[in-house]
């Protein structure tokens, strides 16, 4: 089993019309053993920005802690909130600092900039960023299923409710077929009013 699949987890982010959404599963395991089903992988890093970190749990925690520190310093120095694009660049640079001993985790950034334009992006563990204009970003143990589901169901200019529904469908169907992720799901919808969280019931708990 790959080191990225040791603890399990999956994250998926999508953009809509002046909104963005990111979903996470809740499983934390050690190999095939389950440790907890209350471990979401997404953290809110600003009033309109969320970051999901998948991969090896210890490195995901470390990356989150270091990123949080750097964002706080950025906010203090610049006296403004960080935009998702800048956050992506910061996370990518942080990952590349460890080029020859990388963190085994890959952040996914999802948010709205101050003009309320949605933005999602992700990177691999070395900091190679994805397409800036990507409609959706997926990561985790069931990334291939997620990619297929998103490709099939995503359409442009969805409003927040439609976006949440589509994201829920994509995520639920992918998680239900993957033993290393799942055990619950939370969706974070980011609009100009902020981040709203919703825990989804009814996914397979196995």
């Amino acid at each position, binding site marked *: 089993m790959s080191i990225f699949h040791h603890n399990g987890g999956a994250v998926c982010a999508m953009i809509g019309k002046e909104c963005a959404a990111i979903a996470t599963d809740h499983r*934390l395991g050690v190999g095939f*053993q389950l*440790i907890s089903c209350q471990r979401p992988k997404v953290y809110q890093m600003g009033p309109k920005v969320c970051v999901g970190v998948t991969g090896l*749990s*210890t490195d995901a925690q470390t990356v989150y802690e270091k990123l949080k520190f750097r964002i706080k310093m950025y906010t203090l120095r610049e006296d403004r909130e960080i935009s998702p694009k800048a956050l992506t660049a910061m996370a990518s640079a942080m990952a590349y600092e460890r080029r020859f001993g990388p963190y085994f985790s890959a952040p996914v950034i999802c948010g709205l900039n101050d003009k309320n334009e949605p933005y999602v992006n992700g990177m691999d563990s070395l900091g190679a960023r994805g397409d800036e204009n990507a409609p959706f970003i997926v990561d985790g143990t069931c990334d291939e299923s997620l990619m297929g589901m998103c490709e099939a169901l995503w359409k442009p200019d969805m409003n927040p409710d439609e976006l949440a529904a589509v994201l829920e469908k994509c995520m639920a169907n992918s998680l239900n077929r993957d033993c290393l992720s799942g055990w619950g799901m939370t969706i974070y919808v980011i609009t100009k009013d902020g981040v709203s969280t919703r825990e989804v019931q009814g996914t397979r708990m196995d």
Partner: protein
Amino acid sequence: KRRRLTMADILLGVTGKDYVLLAADRSAARSIIVFKNDEDKILELDSHKLMATSGPQGDRTNFGEYIQRNLQLYNLANSVPLSTHGAANFARRELAEALRRSPWQVNSLIAGFDKKGPSLYYMDYMASMHKVDKAAHGYGAYFTLSVMDRYCVKDMSLEEGLSVLKKCIHELQTRFLLKCNSFILKVVDKDGTRIIDMDGNTVEPPKPKTFNKSDDSDSKADE
């Protein structure tokens, strides 16, 4: 192979209404040899925190004592003890930073009681940490986690928690290949940490065995 070094020690933990109960087996063994069978694997980090550790003896004691002493230093320097959350995160950070330098092969359970009540933190040897209500490490986890899932309820009393642990230990003694005759049970609640036996009665801290006859006679003379 890395992981197998930490697998044979049994660590169990359950959280109740106002306490956390930790149990650890008492044998210190490597490969086919048992060095001693009265080892205390649960360290008192401070008055209201416990850390149960598993792994090779050197790493286990070194990491445990390192965290213990740094927490004492924090207490002295700041005149106030660190919360359980802070202590667990401190331990996690130390372990995570050492992971790519000179790693400690130590699985641990950190338990504490502070203003927010009882809390138990599960920590892997790679420093993935999570706050949980019940936890177990190593091979013992394969036998006991399901027992805990079945019998643990929210806001358990100490008697209920002890009965769950008794069931876990019985399961281990029946079905686990490695002999686990004795366990050390420690509980942390608002009054601090104490060692208890299977019926919940407080026991004295186990005295280390002495093999020197003259030492024994000295202690008798003091009495």
